[in-house]
C-alpha cells in the first residue's frame, strides 16, 4: 500500500515538473524559440483534451457501471463536431482569431454590437454553470487521495483518520490558483496566448491517456485474461445488453456536442489559444482518435470492477481501486496521476477562461465606472487589468471550493451533465450569430434568458433533490401550484427522462425565443456592422479591438494617437498632459479633461466626428450611432477632396522638379561640351604652332644647313601658318553661323553657275586630278538664296572628295533632282565611303577621318551643316550605297523670315 505521504510527495514532484515545463515554454515563447513544438498541431490537439476531465477519467467508468454504453455519447458529440470541423469550427476559429475574441462572452457580445449586458449575462451563466464542475474536480482529487488513505480498498468514507478532506481540497485549490495566476496572467497583453498553460495541459493530456490505457490493458490482459474472455465477461455482466434509451442517446450526444462548442475552457484552448487555423484540420481526426482511446477501456474496467470489487464500492473510483485491490501500487499511482492531471488541467483552463470573462466584463466596467465618478485611483490601467484578472482567478477557485464544501458532491456524471446543459444554452445565440445576419441583440438576450431560466428550473434546482432547492410540492404540483410548471414535466408532458426533458425544453425554447424575438426586433447600426462582419467573415479581414482592450484607457488611446498623430507628437502630448496632471511617467489619467483635449488634438487630424467616435470606442465603449457614421462619412468625403487637391499640387510640383532636373542635365551637358570644345581648340591651335616653333628654332640655331633643307623647313612653317589662319577663319565663321548673327545675301541665279564656281575653286591647285560628272540640263534650275554660302558648302564637298577619295581613278558625280520646292543635290564619289560608325560624327566639330594626314581643322562639315540650316535646307550623308554620297537639300525659294527667326532661336539655345 502506498502511504499518503509518498503519494503527496509524488504529487508535489509532478506539479513541480509542470511548473518547470510551463516556465520553460513561456521562456522559449518569449524568446521566439521552440515554435515548432509550442505551435504544433500535436500540442493543439492535446490541449483540446481538457474536455476529458476527472469526470471522464473516473466518472466514465462509474457511468458505464451504472448505465452501460450511454457514457460514450459524451464523446460521440465532440467527435462529430471535430469531424464536421468544416461546418462550424472552421468559422468559429477564424472569427475568433480575426476579431481578437478573448472568450465566449466576448464573442457573443461582439457579435451583438459589443453589448456589455449580453457579456455580463453570458459571464454569469458561465460561472454558474462551470463552478460546480470545478468543485467536481476538487472532489475527485480528494476522493482519489482518500482511497489511498482508506483502510479497506473500495469502501470509502469521508471521515478517515489521518486524512482531512477539506484541508486537502484547500491545498489543491491553492496550488491550482497559484499556477493559474502565475502562468495565466503573465502576459500583460490581454490577447496574448498562454504557451505555459497550453504546454502543461498537453503534458497532462499525455499522462492521463497513458494512465487510463495502462489501467485498461492491465484489466483486459492482466485480470480478464484477454480480449475474447473480456468480451464474454461483458456480455455476461449486468450491463451485458444494450439498454440505452433512444431519447437519452440522441439528447446526450447533442448536448455534449453543444457543450463542446460552448464550454468556456474549450473555447479558450480551441479558439483563443489557437495559433494556426490549419491545426484544426489535423485535430479534426486526431482529437476523435484521442477521445476514442480515452473511452476504449471504460466498459471493461467497469465490468471487471463490478465483478472483482466488493459490492458497495464506488464505481467512480474503479480506475484506482482495481489496481490497488490487486496490489499494483505503481499502476495505481499512475492512475492517480492521470486523474490528478485531468482534474488540474481542467481547473486551470476553466479558471483562466472564466477569469478573463469576469475580469473583462464585470470587474473592469465596475472599476471604470468608479473611476468615472472621480475617485482618485493611482496606478496604470494595465496593472488594474492584471490585478483584476488575478482577483477573478482567486474568486473563481474560491467559488469552486465553497461549492465543494457546501454541496458535498453527488455522482460525478450528474454534475457534468448539468454543467453541460447550462453552457449549451449559449449555442443558439452563438451559431445564430455566426450564420444568420438577422440575429439581434434583443433576440440573443431573450433566448439566453429563457434557456437559462429553464435550465435552472428543470436541471440545476432539481439536482439538489426533492425538498432540496425546490419543495416536494413544486415537483408534484408545479411552481406556484401551476400544474404546467412542474420542473420535470413542463406543459403537462410527463414521463420523459428528466435530462432529456430539460435539454429538449431549454434548448428548443431558447432557440425559438431567440429566433422569434430576432425577427421582430431591429438591430442597432453597430450591431448590423458587427453582424455583417461575423457572418461574412470569410471575406473580410482585419482585427477588431475587443472590449477588454476598450477599457485599457490611456494605453490604447496612446496607440491610437500614435497612429494618427505620429509617435513623437503623441508622446510629447501625453507627457505634457501627464505633467499637467502632476504625474510622472508617460501616461496621464484618462480624465474627462484629458480625453477632451486628446479628442481636439485628434480632430485636427481626422475630423471631429471621427475623433469623437474613435475616442468614444476606446474610453467609454460607447457605440457608434448612424449620425456618427454619417458625420464620419461626410468628413471623409471632405478629406478625400482635400487630399485629391493635394495630390494634384504634388503632381504639379513633381512635374516642375522634373523640368528643372532636365534643364540642369542640359546645362551640365552643355558645360561638358564647352570643356571638350575648348580642349579641342587648344589642341588644334597648338599642333601647327608646335611645328612652327620647332622649325623656326631649328632655322634660327642651325649654322650649317643646306639651301634645300632651309627651303623645305621654311615652307613647312609657311603651310602650318596657313593652316592656323584657316582654322581661325573657320572658327570665326562657325561662331558667327552658330550665333545666328550671319546676314544672308539673297540673290537669284542658276544652280549650274553656283556649281561651276564651286568646282573651279575647289580644284584650283589640286595635287590629284578629280573627274567631275555633271548633268547640265538638270542644273539649269533657278534658285533664290545666299549663293555665296551655298557655294561654300559645295566647295567643301568637292574639296573633300578630292582630298579623301581613295579610288585609283577618283571621280565625283554631281546629280541634281527637283522635289516639289526643294532641290536635291547628291555628291557621289567612287571612293570607299565613310565607315558606318563614323557617319554619325562626321558633322561634329573637329572630326577628321582618322589615319589621313589632314590639313583641315575638321570644321568644314560642321560649317556646311550650319550653313544649310541657315538656308532652310539640310546636308546629310546617305549610306547604303557603295560610294560615299553627301546629299544637300536646298529650297528653291528661301525660307520666310519667321522661319528664319525660329531657326535663329533654335541655334541660339
Amino acid at each position: 500500500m502506498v502511504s499518503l505521504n509518498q503519494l503527496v510527495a509524488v504529487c508535489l514532484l509532478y506539479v513541480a515538473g509542470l511548473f518547470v515545463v510551463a516556465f520553460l515554454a513561456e521562456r522559449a515563447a518569449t524568446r521566439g524559440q521552440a515554435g515548432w513544438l509550442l505551435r504544433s498541431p500535436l500540442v493543439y490537439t492535446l490541449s483540446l483534451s481538457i474536455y476529458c476531465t476527472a469526470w471522464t477519467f473516473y466518472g466514465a467508468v462509474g457511468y458505464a457501471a451504472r448505465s452501460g454504453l450511454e457514457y460514450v455519447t459524451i464523446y460521440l458529440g465532440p467527435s462529430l463536431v471535430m469531424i464536421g470541423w468544416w461546418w462550424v469550427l472552421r468559422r468559429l476559429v477564424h472569427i475568433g482569431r480575426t476579431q481578437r475574441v478573448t472568450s465566449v462572452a466576448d464573442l457573443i457580445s461582439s457579435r451583438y454590437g459589443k453589448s456589455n449586458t449580453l457579456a455580463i449575462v453570458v459571464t454569469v451563466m458561465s460561472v454558474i454553470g462551470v463552478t460546480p464542475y470545478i468543485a467536481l474536480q476538487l472532489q475527485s482529487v480528494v476522493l482519489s487521495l482518500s482511497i489511498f488513505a482508506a483502510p479497506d480498498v473500495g469502501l470509502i468514507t469521508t471521515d478517515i483518520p489521518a486524512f482531512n478532506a477539506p484541508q486537502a481540497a484547500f491545498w489543491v485549490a491553492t496550488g491550482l490558483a497559484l499556477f493559474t495566476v502565475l502562468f495565466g496572467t503573465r502576459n500583460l497583453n490581454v490577447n496574448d496566448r498562454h504557451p505555459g498553460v497550453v504546454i502543461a495541459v498537453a503534458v497532462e493530456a499525455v499522462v492521463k491517456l497513458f494512465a487510463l490505457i495502462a489501467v485498461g490493458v492491465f484489466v483486459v490482459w492482466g485480470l480478464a485474461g484477454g480480449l475474447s474472455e473480456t468480451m464474454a465477461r461483458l456480455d455476461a455482466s449486468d450491463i451485458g445488453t444494450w439498454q440505452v434509451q433512444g431519447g437519452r442517446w440522441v439528447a446526450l450526444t447533442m448536448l455534449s456536442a453543444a457543450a463542446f462548442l460552448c464550454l468556456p475552457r474549450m473555447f479558450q484552448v480551441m479558439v483563443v489559444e489557437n495559433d494556426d487555423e490549419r491545426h484544426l484540420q489535423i485535430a479534426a481526426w486526431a482529437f476523435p482518435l484521442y477521445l476514442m482511446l480515452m473511452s476504449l477501456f471504460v466498459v471493461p474496467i467497469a465490468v471487471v470492477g463490478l465483478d472483482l470489487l466488493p459490492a458497495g464500492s464506488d464505481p467512480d473510483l474503479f480506475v484506482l481501486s482495481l489496481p490497488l485491490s490487486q496490489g499494483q501500487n505503481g499502476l495505481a499511482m499512475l492512475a492517480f496521476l492521470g486523474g490528478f492531471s485531468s482534474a488540474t488541467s481542467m481547473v486551470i483552463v476553466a479558471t483562466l477562461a472564466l477569469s478573463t470573462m469576469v475580469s473583462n466584463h464585470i470587474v473592469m466596467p465596475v472599476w471604470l465606472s468608479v473611476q468615472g465618478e472621480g475617485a482618485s485611483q493611482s496606478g496604470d490601467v494595465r496593472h488594474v487589468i492584471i490585478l483584476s484578472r488575478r482577483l477573478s482567478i482567486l474568486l473563481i477557485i474560491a467559488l469552486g471550493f465553497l461549492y465543494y464544501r457546501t454541496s458535498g458532491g453527488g455522482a460525478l456524471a450528474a454534475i457534468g451533465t448539468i454543467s453541460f446543459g447550462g453552457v449549451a444554452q449559449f449555442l443558439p445565440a452563438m451559431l445564430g450569430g455566426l450564420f444568420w445576419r438577422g440575429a439581434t441583440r434583443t433576440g440573443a438576450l431573450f433566448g439566453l434568458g429563457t434557456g437559462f431560466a429553464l435550465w435552472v428550473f428543470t436541471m440545476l434546482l432539481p439536482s439538489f433533490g426533492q425538498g432540496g432547492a425546490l419543495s416536494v410540492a413544486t415537483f408534484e404540483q408545479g411552481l406556484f401550484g401551476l400544474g404546467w410548471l412542474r420542473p420535470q414535466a413542463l406543459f403537462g408532458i410527463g414521463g420523459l427522462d428528466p435530462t432529456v426533458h430539460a435539454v429538449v425544453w431549454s434548448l428548443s425554447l431558447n432557440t425559438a425565443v431567440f429566433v422569434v424575438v430576432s425577427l421582430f426586433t431591429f438591430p442597432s447600426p453597430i450591431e448590423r456592422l458587427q453582424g455583417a462582419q461575423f457572418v461574412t467573415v470569410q471575406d473580410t479581414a482585419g482585427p477588431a479591438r475587443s472590449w477588454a482592450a476598450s477599457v485599457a484607457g490611456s494605453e490604447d488611446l496612446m496607440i491610437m494617437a500614435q497612429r494618427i498623430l505620429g509617435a513623437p507628437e503623441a508622446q510629447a502630448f501625453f507627457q505634457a498632459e501627464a505633467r499637467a496632471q502632476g504625474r510622472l511617467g508617460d501616461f496621464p489619467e484618462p480624465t474627462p479633461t484629458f480625453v477632451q483635449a486628446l479628442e481636439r488634438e485628434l480632430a485636427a487630424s481626422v475630423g471631429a466626428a471621427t475623433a469623437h467616435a474613435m475616442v468614444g470606442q476606446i474610453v467609454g465603449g460607447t457605440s457608434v450611432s448612424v449620425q456618427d457614421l454619417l458625420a464620419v462619412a461626410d468628413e471623409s468625403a471632405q478629406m478625400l477632396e482635400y487630399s485629391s487637391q493635394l495630390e494634384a499640387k504634388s503632381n504639379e510640383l513633381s512635374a516642375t522638379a522634373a523640368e528643372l532636373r532636365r534643364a540642369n542635365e542640359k546645362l551640365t551637358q552643355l558645360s561638358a561640351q564647352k570643356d571638350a570644345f575648348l580642349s579641342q581648340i587648344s589642341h588644334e591651335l597648338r599642333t601647327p604652332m608646335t611645328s612652327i616653333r620647332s622649325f623656326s628654332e631649328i632655322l634660327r640655331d642651325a649654322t650649317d644647313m643646306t639651301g634645300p633643307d632651309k627651303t623645305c623647313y621654311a615652307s613647312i612653317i609657311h603651310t602650318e601658318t596657313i593652316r592656323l589662319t584657316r582654322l581661325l577663319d573657320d572658327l570665326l565663321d562657325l561662331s558667327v553661323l552658330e550665333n545666328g548673327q550671319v546676314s544672308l545675301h539673297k540673290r537669284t541665279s542658276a544652280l549650274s553657275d553656283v556649281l561651276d564656281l564651286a568646282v573651279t575653286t575647289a580644284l584650283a591647285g589640286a595635287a590629284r586630278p578629280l573627274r567631275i560628272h555633271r548633268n547640265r540640263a538638270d542644273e539649269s534650275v533657278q534658285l533664290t538664296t545666299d549663293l555665296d554660302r551655298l557655294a561654300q558648302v559645295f566647295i567643301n564637298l568637292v574639296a573633300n572628295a578630292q582630298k579623301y577619295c581613295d579610288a585609283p581613278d577618283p571621280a565625283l558625280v554631281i546629280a541634281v533632282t527637283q522635289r516639289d520646292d526643294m532641290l536635291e543635290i547628291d555628291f557621289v564619289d567612287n571612293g570607299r565611303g565613310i565607315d558606318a560608325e563614323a557617319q554619325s560624327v562626321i558633322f561634329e566639330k573637329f572630326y577628321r577621318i582618322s589615319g589621313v594626314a589632314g590639313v583641315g581643322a575638321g570644321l568644314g562639315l560642321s560649317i556646311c551643316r550650319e550653313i544649310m540650316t541657315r538656308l532652310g535646307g539640310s546636308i546629310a550623308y546617305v549610306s547604303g550605297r557603295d560610294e560615299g554620297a553627301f546629299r544637300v537639300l536646298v529650297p528653291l525659294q528661301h525660307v520666310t523670315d519667321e522661319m528664319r527667326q525660329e531657326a535663329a532661336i533654335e541655334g541660339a539655345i
Partner: protein
Amino acid sequence: MSKHVVLVEDELNIAEAIRFLLSQDGWRVETLANGDTAVDVIRKASPDLVLLDVMLPGKSGFEILHELRSDPAFAALPVMMLTARGQARDREMAEKAGVSKFMTKPFSNTEMLNAVRELTAP
C-alpha cells in the same frame, strides 16, 4: 652604337622636327604615325626611349603607355609624352599611367632635348 628612340606621332611635320632634332643629337629615330601597331613595334625594337603623342589614330597614347607598363620588361623604360591638350587632367592621367616625363606642345627645342638627355642619363 647610337641610342635608339621610337617616336609615335601622327602629325607629320612635328614628327619631322623631332626626328631632325634627335638625329642631330646622335639618336637613331624610328617614326610611327599610328597607335595600333605602336606597342608591337616598341616591343620588337626595345628602344632606349619612347616619345608618345597622346591623340593618335587607332589607339591613344594613354592606352599604349598602360600596355607597356603592364609588361615587366618595359616597366622601367623611359617614356616621354607630348600633348597638344595641355589640361591638368591629361597630366594627371599620364602620371597615373606611369609616364616618365610629360611635355605640352608647343615646346622649345632645347627644353625637349634637355628632357630627353635627362631621361636617358646613365
